[in-house]
């Protein structure tokens, strides 16, 4: 669909009832970039300089305070601001939206590739051609790049609005569509010239940025239209009409022809012949045979699917034009400009090369006019390329445009050039995704892009560009989660880089940490996941969040670190696990759970708590049953190898009451012997230089030994 981009700049000049060019209601104001530097005022200095590309580097400096009162406050900050030049350029947020949206189509295509590869040995009757999958993918991606046909049409159609209101198209979309036409859409190969006509209709406006185009001509004329009294006296009117005709904007041409003064009711009487000629041309134009399956509504021409039918219609149509050309009515047409203008149009339709050259502004427009009026059957890249070269000579471009390089690369069948142009003009996103179209294009391109190369470290061009794109994604905190999709599609180095990417993510925030672990789970990277949990565990531990630290180390099953931190934890336990602060420890002990394997050396804490609890009950109530329970806890603690040696004496000292229980001895002979052995071991250990003495009265050990000895005697008597 041909359209004029909404142009807010000219709103004031053509306002009111005569508005011909649709425009956006609000004028484009100055662009404001809010910066969040997060520094406390006062800011002493701001420096601005250029950074890479169209980015500004803004540096904020705080005034250095002499007294050092604000301690850890940073002295300044440097921010990069990316400037968008407003028109045509795509904002970061939009680019991210495209990046998000392209993940699913890409992933679907990769999984289809895998299933096709596994099925290729079995010949299936329901075989779907690969390009059909690529076409689905291409359509999904294309829809992300904006839909220029989405603006609602006004309720009352302006009869003088020649062009329809559309959203500004982007070069990215134009490039994608071009590649789709040439590489993915095998159905359209038969009517490729008409696809190119449509493409130029949609995107000629983009070329206006660097040179004169027919689109620009039409837009300019539309602005003048309101001031013209007798439209057919204006040379520009005929110029614009023939230009629009040359590139096949038939609906625009017919609409403009019907603005001709001879249609006015007060003039139709004395300009009957003239009006007849204008209408005859308009009818001929709207009946133009087109070699294509269908046309959009509102577009003119008659469609033919089969070549013989088309040739027949084409010959008939040309015969009608020739007949009109040699008609006697021209003599009776008094209006000179009309006569000349219409005859020039007939020449264009008959494919007069001089008329076409005059009517078009640059070689692509001339090229398109060739397809329409001279060589509608051009097939094969080779003949298309030689025709393009001829047009370039006839109508060279004044300056280069990003899209033109791509067009030449595609027509020249040069995959490397196409890839280079995509990379240069549209960046890593385009290359990574367009590769799917290129490999679908031809077997040669597929081999070229997928063969492993020694100079790339054994990877293919395809993999290289996916890795580059994944790298770009992983640099942004908002998009790094997309990178795994692309990395896992890389056979050689993808998984290695994915492991690095995941290992390098910050683990401070639990939510992000969990997102990383989830990605590890999806790709079955258990060792990475457990490493990350270890890092998180140590991080939380070091920042005083002991519970979280223990949890993550438990999840990672890191017994070594759990045992090590257990020793540190016991230091604070010795002092603080009094009856009052039990509540604080309760939660941590609950967290440790009953599974001794995941608790490591910390299992001691749980047993110690149980022992302390029953000891407290003994002190409160003094029933023998409770005391017996406390003794069981004590024995299990002393038996357990994870009980640190330095706790032995305090434990025994705390249980003196149990050891010398009045009613009956609570420990049997073997239990007492066990404890006595521990006391002996302890006495030996005290001689070692690294022994840590418990904070107990000096006679504690003696007291315990005496109590044990007494108990042993009583127990022996009891058992007899």
């Amino acid at each position: 669909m041909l359209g004029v981009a909404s142009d807010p700049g000219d709103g004031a000049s053509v306002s009111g009832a005569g508005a011909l060019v649709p425009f956006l209601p609000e004028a484009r104001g100055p662009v404001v970039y809010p910066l969040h530097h997060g520094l406390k005022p006062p800011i002493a200095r701001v420096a601005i300089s250029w950074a890479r590309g169209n980015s500004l580097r803004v540096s904020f400096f705080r005034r250095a305070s002499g007294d050092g009162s604000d301690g850890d406050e940073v002295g300044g900050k440097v921010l990069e601001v990316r400037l968008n030049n407003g028109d045509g350029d795509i904002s970061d947020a939009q680019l991210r939206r495209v990046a998000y949206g392209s993940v699913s189509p890409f992933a679907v295509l990769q999984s289809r590739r895998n299933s096709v590869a596994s099925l290729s040995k079995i010949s299936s009757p329901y075989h779907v051609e690969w390009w059909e999958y690529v076409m689905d993918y291409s359509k999904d991606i294309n829809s992300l790049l904006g839909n220029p046909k989405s603006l609602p049409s006004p309720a009352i159609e302006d009869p003088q609005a020649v062009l329809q209101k559309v959203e500004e198209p982007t070069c990215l979309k134009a490039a994608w569509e071009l590649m789709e036409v040439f590489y993915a859409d095998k159905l359209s190969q038969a009517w490729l010239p008409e696809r190119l006509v449509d493409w130029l209709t949609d995107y000629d406006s983009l070329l206006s940025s660097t040179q004169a185009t027919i689109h620009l001509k039409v837009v300019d004329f539309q602005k003048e239209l309101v001031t013209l009294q007798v439209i057919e006296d204006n040379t520009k009117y005929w110029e614009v009409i023939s230009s629009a005709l040359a590139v096949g904007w038939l609906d625009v041409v017919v609409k403009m022809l019907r603005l001709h003064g001879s249609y006015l009711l007060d003039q139709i009487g004395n300009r009957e012949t003239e009006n007849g000629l204008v209408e005859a041309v308009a009818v001929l134009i709207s009946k133009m045979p087109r070699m294509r399956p269908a046309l959009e509504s509102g577009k003119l021409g008659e469609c033919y699917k089969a070549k013989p039918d088309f040739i027949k219609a084409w010959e008939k149509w040309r015969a009608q034009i020739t007949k009109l050309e040699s008609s006697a009515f021209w003599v009776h047409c008094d209006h000179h400009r009309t006569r000349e203008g219409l005859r020039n149009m007939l020449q264009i339709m008959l494919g007069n090369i001089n008329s076409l050259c005059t009517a078009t502004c640059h070689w692509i427009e001339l090229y398109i006019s060739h397809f329409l009026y001279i060589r509608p059957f051009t097939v094969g890249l080779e003949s298309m390329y030689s025709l393009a070269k001829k047009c370039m000579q006839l109508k060279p471009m004044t300056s280069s445009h990003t899209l033109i390089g791509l067009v030449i690369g595609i027509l020249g069948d040069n995959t490397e050039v196409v890839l280079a142009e995509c990379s240069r003009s549209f960046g890593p996103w385009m290359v990574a995704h367009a590769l799917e179209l290129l490999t679908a294009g031809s077997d040669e391109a597929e081999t070229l892009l997928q063969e492993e190369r020694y100079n790339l470290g054994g990877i293919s061009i395809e993999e290289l560009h996916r890795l580059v794109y994944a790298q770009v994604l992983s640099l942004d905190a908002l998009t790094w989660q997309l990178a795994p999709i692309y990395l896992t599609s890389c056979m050689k180095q993808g998984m290695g880089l994915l492991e690095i990417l995941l290992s390098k993510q910050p683990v401070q925030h639990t939510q992000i940490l969990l997102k990383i672990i989830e990605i590890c789970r999806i790709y079955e990277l258990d060792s990475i996941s457990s490493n990350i949990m270890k890092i998180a565990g140590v991080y939380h531990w070091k920042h005083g969040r002991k519970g979280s630290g223990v949890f993550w180390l438990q999840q990672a099953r890191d017994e070594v670190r759990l045992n090590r931190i257990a020793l540190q934890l016991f230091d604070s336990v010795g002092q603080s696990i009094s009856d009052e602060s039990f509540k604080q420890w309760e939660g941590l002990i609950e967290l440790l759970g009953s599974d001794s394997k995941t608790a490591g050396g910390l299992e001691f804490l749980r047993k110690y708590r149980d022992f302390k609890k029953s000891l407290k009950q003994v002190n409160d109530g003094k029933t023998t049953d409770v005391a017996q329970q406390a003794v069981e806890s004590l024995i299990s603690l002393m038996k357990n190898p994870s009980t640190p040696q330095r706790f032995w004496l305090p434990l025994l000292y705390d249980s003196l009451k149990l050891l010398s229980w009045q009613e009956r001895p609570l420990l049997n002979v073997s239990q007492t012997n066990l404890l006595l052995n521990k006391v002996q071991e302890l006495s030996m250990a005290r001689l070692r230089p690294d022994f840590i003495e418990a904070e107990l009265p000096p006679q504690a050990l003696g007291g315990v030994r005496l109590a044990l000895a007494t108990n042993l005697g009583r127990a022996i008597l009891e058992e007899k």
Partner: protein
Amino acid sequence: MAITGGAFPERPQIHRLPQPHYIDAVRWLPQLSAFDRFAVLALSSPSPPQIYSLDPQTLTLAPQSSWAPPSRVSSLRTSRTQTHQPLIAAGTVSGSLHVIFANAVDASMESELSVPEKDLHAGPVSCVDVMDGAAECVSVGEDGRVNLVSVSGSRLGVRRVFDSEGLVSYTAAKWASPTEFVTGGYGFGLQWWDQRRPGGAVSQFKANWAQGTTSGIVHSIDIHPSRKHTCLAGGSLGTVFAWDIRWQQQPIILSGIGTGATHSACESEVWEVQYDRYSKSTNIGNISSSRILPAMICSEDGILAVVEQDEEPIELLAEPCAINSFDIDRENPSEVICSLEWESVVILTRP
């Protein structure tokens, strides 16, 4: 796997609203009138963090008013005061807490009270919850502190209920009654607190199905006003369970892998859980009090679903990216707003 739309003959209407910002949290603002609808979005990078009030009446979210917190918002709640003024409570990653009062007519933000960082938590605020009809908040953090913050005049009064000094970290909180609240944390642990019995949690629950590495973290808690004894929690590994304090250590599992649940709505982190007050046929009064009411969950693997005890989950939304938070409109429970990882908001209107 979840069946799609089993109980709803008509699919909900889904409106996707891409935003140019990452959305940390999203809430409906209590409805002011029948015509105006407002939602609060806590936005973050690359823009400075802001809370926007947006009007989804036309389903084109337009900024209504904004307020810039000192750092990213880590927890967001909305409620209303006794005088029916809408109230927004936000905890930040730097540890500050902010209470914002909105205008009852046009939802513009009128006044803000805050507790500065370090006074409340060392490190981020994990969760805040506002008591219904009273401007009283409970805030918990990974630093192991449990605070009550109440509005007194034009100031915020802070009272520390408990400080585990990092031995236990709390990740979720929810009021059960004017004196009781529940917190959740690591190891699928839940703690029941009663202000009348200070000094620590009154009751503790730890998932004892958690063996080996199947343990996880509670991310969100909800308590139904008519079932104050039952606490609903959602967390890691798609786990959704209910803890009835009358049957101390016996959880009722609604969903989750590795929990022995018959159905599982999702396999990854359940970021948020809320009782789903929207149901067409069943009346809450008819459901036996031992049966858990239907609940809505959102998850890291992009699922928004309604889970019910011993029934197939009903999937409302399956996205290719995480659904980080959602909110069911209290006055009009057919409307759900949720925020996606990929910088967009989705509004669901159920038939």
